[in-house]
């Protein structure tokens, strides 16, 4: 019903060309231009040659579109290698965060024990700890355990710093799941593990999607930990396509623009395709978190 009312209000305001409305449109468009123009500029310059860049105009119309910039960026930026690492590490991190947070949320919310609230608070404390303060001691720990330059050096902190938010969201949603369902399952002789993974998990689907999106957004672009804990390119992630490339092509600006556009592309494309879901997920995650 409220949706219907919503629509009515909007319809009544549709064809309104009052000055106030025009000002609102101008604000909307101005902000959009400010947000998007740097990216258009980036793509434009990435298709030009370096010699053409020293103009005073805003955009360049290249004499010849330089697709070669992208070929160089793709090959010398080791795009596929870094992309594969990013997908693998982030995928694993997402799976681990979801599984661990469901298990912990269930234990803290449903199971009957004395320390449930204490453990929950303890785990949520991670949200307040600045990630970057752990860079120094973690580096020491990982070196000591010979874990630097392995996938674990990224995976463990990625999971650790996304877990609190995951747990927070899961416990929130678990409150909305009726206990009766579990009671029925117990009657049927289900064990706890089956209840958690076969009964509760499917109900939590929307929140799992939210946790996945938030974890992915948190970690996809991370590079501080990666550049601290990793030394060889073996497990380095997508941001390194740029970080290591700029030295190699320090004077060829056009190719640097290309590598930037290329690195940004996967996330932007996925975002545009999944726009609605991601917006919903972020909104849910951010408002609750």
């Amino acid at each position, binding site marked *: 019903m409220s949706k219907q009312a919503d629509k009515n209000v909007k319809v009544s305001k549709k064809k309104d060309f009052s000055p106030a409305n025009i000002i609102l449109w101008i604000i909307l468009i101005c902000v959009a231009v400010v947000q998007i123009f740097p990216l258009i500029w980036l793509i434009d310059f990435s298709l030009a040659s370096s010699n053409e860049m020293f103009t005073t105009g805003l955009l360049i119309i290249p004499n010849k579109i330089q697709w070669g910039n992208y070929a160089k960026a793709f090959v010398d930026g080791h795009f596929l290698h870094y992309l594969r690492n990013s997908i693998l590490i982030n995928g694993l991190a997402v799976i681990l965060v979801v599984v661990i947070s469901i298990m912990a949320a269930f*234990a803290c919310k449903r199971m009957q024990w004395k320390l449930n609230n204490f453990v929950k608070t303890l785990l949520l404390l991670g949200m307040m700890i600045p990630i970057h303060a752990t860079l*120094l001691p973690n580096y020491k720990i990982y070196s000591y355990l010979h874990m630097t330059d392995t996938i674990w050096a990224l995976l463990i902190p990625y999971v650790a710093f996304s877990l609190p938010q995951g747990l927070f969201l899961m416990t929130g949603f678990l409150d909305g799941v009726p206990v009766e369902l579990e009671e029925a399952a117990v009657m049927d002789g289900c064990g706890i593990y089956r209840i958690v993974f076969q009964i509760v998990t499917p109900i939590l689907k929307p929140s799992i999607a939210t946790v996945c999106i938030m974890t992915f957004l948190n970690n996809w672009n991370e590079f501080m930990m990666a550049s601290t804990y990793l030394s060889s390119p073996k497990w380095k992630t997508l941001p390194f396509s740029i970080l290591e490339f700029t030295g190699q092509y320090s004077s060829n600006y056009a190719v640097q623009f290309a590598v930037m556009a290329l690195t940004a592309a996967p996330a932007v494309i996925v975002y545009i395709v999944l726009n609605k879901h991601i917006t919903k997920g972020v909104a849910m995650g951010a*408002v609750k978190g």
Partner: protein
Amino acid sequence: MKKLYSNKLVILSLVFPGLLVFVFAILAPIILSVYYGFTEYSGMGTATFIGLENYKTLFHDKAFGRSLLNSLLLAIGFICIQHPIAIVVAAVLDKLQGKAEGFFRCIYFIPNVISVAVIAYLWKFIYNPDFGLLNNILHIFGVQEKINWFSADLAIWSVLIVLIWHGFGWGMLIYYTGIKNIDPVLYEAASIDGADAKTTFFRITLPLMKPVIQVNVTMAVISALKQMETVYLLTNGGPGNRTQFAANYLYQQAFKAFKYGYGNAIGVVFIIICLIITVGLNTLFADREKKA
């Protein structure tokens, strides 16, 4: 049921992975940091215990003070520049419908999904004195001078602009969600009573958005405090610590200046400041909520 739900072994198996990760990746490093914070240590060789020396030095460290000041500036920038625009844009966006709404929402959020690495290098180019976008735009308005945006006086503002620009979509989206959750019946009632758009915005939208604004302000302050990546790539704190932020400073001290012990002391103070401010803001807003 009760017996099944209080099986200690099952409980342990459920929380163990979470606790393990927490202890290994968060708690143990913090404890180690506290330990190294009391030592003089270059990162190699042996650490010598020097008690509270590091903390005494830190207390008079101008660069650290500057870092906190910059975080404060950034928080003010978020709250006074980014958020008002974000709220207005979110309110206007909510009034749109169909394709336009989705289109603009998408555009505003795109910078947010782009890696900080790309953003930092992109803005380095935008600020470039030779071919940068910003000077070219100013050129159109008749400014002939090639401005160096990373000079001692301008650098911090240049950094703030990037951060405010980059985080805009996030803040906007949260306000937008908040506005979407406002009961449309209220707007209907207001329009029946003859309220114009301005009155509606100030009398209905803003007051009902209070909890959302509080969440957003808290997040803005905390992210201003935790800022590191963009600054690390854009200016690395320079020139002369003018754009320094706490996280970047502790990193520099440990890995560039080889004062690993001192870096950890900064880390400990940094964590304490973050905890105090998070808890402080949350209780402040929770109290207000109760009184209201």
